[in-house]
């Protein structure tokens, strides 16, 4: 034993060192191939049989549950891949996500959110899988992550004002955002509360467009905070609220479909809009199913299906939905500076302003 050790030392290397060096060399040689293979696996399209074997794709979202369920049904009918959903707003989704990432696996696979800032943050933390859908070119750069495939806009949530002419005369209705400051609307304007990604998006894109004191003055009109756009829309329909200060466009379309005489107002200065983004968690347990889901959701067929169900704008130019005003006639204000959009300071400032404005 001792002799062998000495022999090794004599040659300048022990056996352990040789093994270590060999392993390191193998790793170094294999690394590009491993990384490449991982990347190739991430970029490879999902396999349907493998997806079925993986089990139902779990979709986390903040949309209307009934709409998502209907879409998932269509998805399963089309692809044969099962899918389930859970409605989770960011405050519920993110702590769960954080803990699950610590544990190395997520129970959710696909994440649909109204806050593309969250998506961008997840991307930077390597928590999103890069999967480039085959039809990615149908999406303009402002509707997808800069490095494509991490997140893509599955619908554009345009936020006009809304009212019901049964309760508000058309000539009296607000035409511009500044009209909301009129005291005749005191206690009669509704927004979503500060937990909504769309509220943050609204504030973020309007803060440099509107006067600095707009929010304080709006606060003096005692706007109400609702937990969802659906709630605002319902209250408008029932006559309990006169003006929806920012209502998701699909609520307007849903009301029109139900033959409610509602009106949407798209001020010429610009209409706040947010990217509703889809991405796949990097720790997904169902990568094949998730890829097939995103592939379908972002395809022309999937986009028509989803936006038809919901009544919203597709980010694709080749998908048109009935009852929606022509998007080309609107001046959309989208968050594009993600460095600023993600900043914690901006979010804190928003929460402070919004909560104060809505009396929280």
């Amino acid at each position, binding site marked *: 034993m001792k002799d062998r050790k000495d022999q090794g030392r004599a040659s300048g290397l022990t056996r352990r060192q040789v093994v270590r060096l060999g392993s390191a060399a193998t790793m170094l040689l294999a690394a590009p191939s491993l990384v490449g293979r991982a990347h190739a696996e991430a970029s490879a399209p999902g396999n349907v049989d493998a997806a079925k074997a993986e089990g139902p794709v*779990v979709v*986390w979202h903040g*949309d*209307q*549950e*009934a709409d998502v*369920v209907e879409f998932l049904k269509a998805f399963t009918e089309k692809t044969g891949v099962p899918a*389930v*959903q*859970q*409605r989770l*707003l*960011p*405050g*519920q989704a*993110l*702590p*769960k996500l*954080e*803990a*699950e990432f610590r*544990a190395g696996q997520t*129970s*959710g696979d696909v994440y649909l959110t109204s*806050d593309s*800032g*969250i998506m961008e943050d997840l991307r930077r933390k390597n928590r999103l899988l890069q999967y480039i859908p085959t039809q990615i070119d149908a999406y303009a750069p402002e509707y997808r992550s800069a490095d494509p495939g991490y997140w893509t806009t599955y619908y554009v949530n345009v936020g006009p004002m809304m009212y019901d002419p049964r309760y508000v005369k058309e000539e009296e209705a607000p035409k511009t955002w500044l009209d909301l400051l009129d005291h005749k609307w005191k206690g009669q304007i509704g927004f979503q*509360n*500060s*937990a909504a*990604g769309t509220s*943050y998006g609204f504030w973020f894109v309007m803060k440099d467009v509107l006067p600095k004191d707009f929010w304080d003055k709006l606060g003096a009109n*005692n706007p*109400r*905070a*609702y*937990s*969802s756009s*659906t*709630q605002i829309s*319902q*209250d408008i*329909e*029932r*006559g*309990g*609220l006169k003006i929806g200060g920012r209502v998701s466009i699909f609520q307007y379309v849903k009301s029109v479909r*139900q033959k*409610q005489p509602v009106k949407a107002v798209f001020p010429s200065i610009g209409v706040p809009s947010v990217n509703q983004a889809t991405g796949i968690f990097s720790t997904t347990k169902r990568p094949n199913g998730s890829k097939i889901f995103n592939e379908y959701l972002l395809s022309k067929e999937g986009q028509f299906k989803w936006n038809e169900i919901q009544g919203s704008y597709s980010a694709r130019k080749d998908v048109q939905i009935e009852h929606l005003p022509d998007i080309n006639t609107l001046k959309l204000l989208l968050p594009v500076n993600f460095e600023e959009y993600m900043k*914690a300071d901006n*979010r804190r400032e928003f*929460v402070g302003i919004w*909560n104060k404005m*809505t*009396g*929280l």
Partner: protein
Amino acid sequence: MSSIAQEGSVRNLRGPNRLDIRAEVWIPLVLMIGALGYPLFLLLTSAFNVGDPEQFPARVYGFDNFVKLSRHLDWIGNTLIVASGGTVLGITIGVSLAWIIHRTTMPGRKWFDLLIAIPYPLGPLVGALAWSQLGAPRDGLINRFFTAVTGIQSPLIDIYTPLGIIFTEAVFEAPVAVLIIGAAMQRMDPALEECSTIFGSGKLRTAWKITLPLMMPAILSAALFMFTSMIGSFAIPTMLGASSRFYVSTNAMYILLQGYPPNYPLAAALGLVLIAMTAVAVWLVQRVLRGRSYAVISGKNYRPRQVNMGWMTWVLFAGALTYVMLSLVLPMGTLLLASFQSSNAINFDFASWTLRNYKYVMFDFPTTQQAIVNSLILGIGTGTLGVVFATFIAIATHRSTSSGRGLLEQVTMLPQAFPRLIFAIGFLWMILTLPIQLYGTLLAVLLAYVVVFLPLAYRGMSGVVVQIDKALEEAARVSGASPMRVLRTVILPLLRPGLVATWALLFMVSVREISASLFLSGPNTQVLGPAIFSFWDSGGMPRVSALAVVQALIILIALTVVRFMAGRGVRV
């Protein structure tokens, strides 16, 4: 004599202060301390966390969150207003109804006894949903009826106000007060009332001056129960408070936790304040009750005399009927009406009514099917586990001679001081930090339910255990029965009515639960309360009404089945 002397000498050897904690006490004690202590620890550390708000447990501590909270004293003030106002109104309703049902000769008392109990298991979520359609200022059914009859355009009532919230809370919590106070009224010694009558007091004066003070321990117990429930109440203020910008602690906390980034530290600080407020209320009532309970409750069983109120009987009948209308008939009727609609506004054009909403929630929408199944599983699981655990603890605290029984009882009752929403947040943080994968399982929700409802189960089982005379067990043992045989042939049959009643109560409160499950239910663990809430949030009134009616039916069927199975002698 010699054996007594020997026993005394053994005691002396052990010493008077020797701790003798036996398994029947320390096992549940450790389980309860673990289930409550760790979530509380996480809440505490988060409340004082001034570093990374998403770090559990925190690393940098300070008082900043409490300083921030001092700028939002309105949340705490509003919580106190709702809890105090709701408790006063609820107790007023509870005392009146308990007295009418148990102490007068009003006709139909048995029916009222049954009908008055129903709104409680239906729960605040159903109440808020129904009253938002009954009492909305513009299109609420009551206001529409009022305008149609009188021609007056201004609304008669507005449920979206602090008073509306207090009213709804009180109406749907009052059955508990009727139950607690009614039970005490049935055991009351009528001698003092008879004296009062002999000395010339009228019936109402006797009720006011004699009956009411005698009932004070029961009234305070009921008041405490209602107050703690209302401090943690979530559904009613959230659903009715938005329109009037009225925030209590729970709906403010919900918004703090829902946003991005979630403000855990401020929410936790607020949660701690609520726990402290509830704990103070519990302590105050216990303090008051300690001095009074022995003065009113005696071991004898009485059958108090029932008072014929003459012409006033019909006034009382009208009062009881009004309560049943406000708490049961109108809310359920409104939900039924709303569930047949195809739009958010209720119309009476029968031709446009549809059953599609029921088809949707029962057959087309997988979430609700899953939620119904899971809620039933949880109801059965919570009922069974809760009853077993509560019975074990009740027997341990009342039958064991072990040290630490008092502590076990206090720890068992401790969840009462935790508003359920806050406990759920702490519990969620706890299971997310555990090495075992508990999050996202039905087991996690079940464990949380068992813990939060344990005080309710313990209260029920404790009351039954103390009523069983020890002599019966001793007689069985003397006759040679083994402990298991004593349990099977003596204790369990005697406990049966209490077991069934407590099981049914736990089943019903589990099925109607929302606050504890809101943060704990996952993709495969949807339950009815959060499903209804989510539907309310984003699904439209007709469908959510249909789902609420389905939930109510499940609860009512369970109630009927249990009453049927239990037969006579069980009060559910």
